[in-house]
């Protein structure tokens, strides 16, 4: 198909910016060599590019920048707090799973070791039941606190005090749970 003015005109912008393919560039070159109207159009294209390129750039007011940054900084801080809480909840969830696994597969076994199912003494059952309640209570507390505290809070404050409370003698009135 012959490369004519209708094809050449829309291509001139890309042609001037070097965006045309090699094949199209050759066609435009050949057409321009033979077409005065399109050569004039190319000059107008160049002049318009210069005129629009010479338009000054307005300076964004400092107050606008400040407003944008105020919103962004606040949202960024909120996102960080939310992520830390989610990590805390994740940790607590892991603790809960690990504790449940330990309770179900280890602790009851320790309390009842050596006794067959039909020979549990009332004391063994009471001890296992109490340990289960204490462990679940501790885990629930950690989980609850993690929802409102940071990971650092959980490790440095909530968890040690809860563990310490759970390790006090059963008859200690200050014992947690």
């Amino acid at each position: 198909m012959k490369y004519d003015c209708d094809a050449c005109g829309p291509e001139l912008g890309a042609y001037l910016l070097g965006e045309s393919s090699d094949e199209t560039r050759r066609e435009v070159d050949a057409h321009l060599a033979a077409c005065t109207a399109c050569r004039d159009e190319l000059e107008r294209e160049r002049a318009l590019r210069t005129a629009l390129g010479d338009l000054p750039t307005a300076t964004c007011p400092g107050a606008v920048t400040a407003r944008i940054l105020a919103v962004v900084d606040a949202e960024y801080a909120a996102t960080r707090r939310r992520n830390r809480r989610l990590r805390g909840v994740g940790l607590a969830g892991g603790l809960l799973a690990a504790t449940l696994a330990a309770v179900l597969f280890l602790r009851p076994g320790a309390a009842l070791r050596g006794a067959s199912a039909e020979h549990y003494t009332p004391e063994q059952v009471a001890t296992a039941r109490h340990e289960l309640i204490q462990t679940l209570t501790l885990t629930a507390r950690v989980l609850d606190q993690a929802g409102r505290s940071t990971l650092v809070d959980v490790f440095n404050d909530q968890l040690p005090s809860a563990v310490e409370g759970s390790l006090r003698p059963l008859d200690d009135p200050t014992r947690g749970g």
Partner: protein
Amino acid sequence: MTNETFHELLATHRDRVFTQALFSLRERRDAEDVTQEAFLRLWRQGDHLPADRVAPWLAHVTRNLCIDQTRRRSAARRHLGVADADAVDGLVAAAGGPDDPFAGLDLDDRQRRLLDALQTLPAETRTVMLMHYGDGTKLADIADAMGKSLAAVKVQVHRARQRLRLVLGTADGVSEQRGSA
């Protein structure tokens, strides 16, 4: 996107976005609002935008926001009614006219005529012209940002160029430069 990355993008692109909004809306306060909204959308876009697509993406969003702003203005005038809207215009004129949106830009007459001529183009076409000619954005990137074919954008630019020539007439700065480049 980290806070620091956004700060850098804001510093790099804020003047360009504000200028586009100002040239499109010709009202500083509206341009400020559009600039703020465009960058908040960029922030909320997160890391889903490659670095080399930020400029055309911002231009595209700014153009859409400008269109929305123009529609709101028109709706407000319709709500006021012709008589009241004319009365408001009269009060503004009596107070010395609206503030020059381009104050401080040091525009010469030729550039003011060019901006007036740009105003006669559809908002999308005006954005394309400012991106392509003013910022040197590649037509392929513009087409990508606007979800159009490259061929369609080329035709759009070509027609806009013809339209500008028609509006500016033979005495404009663009035509005066014919053959000088």
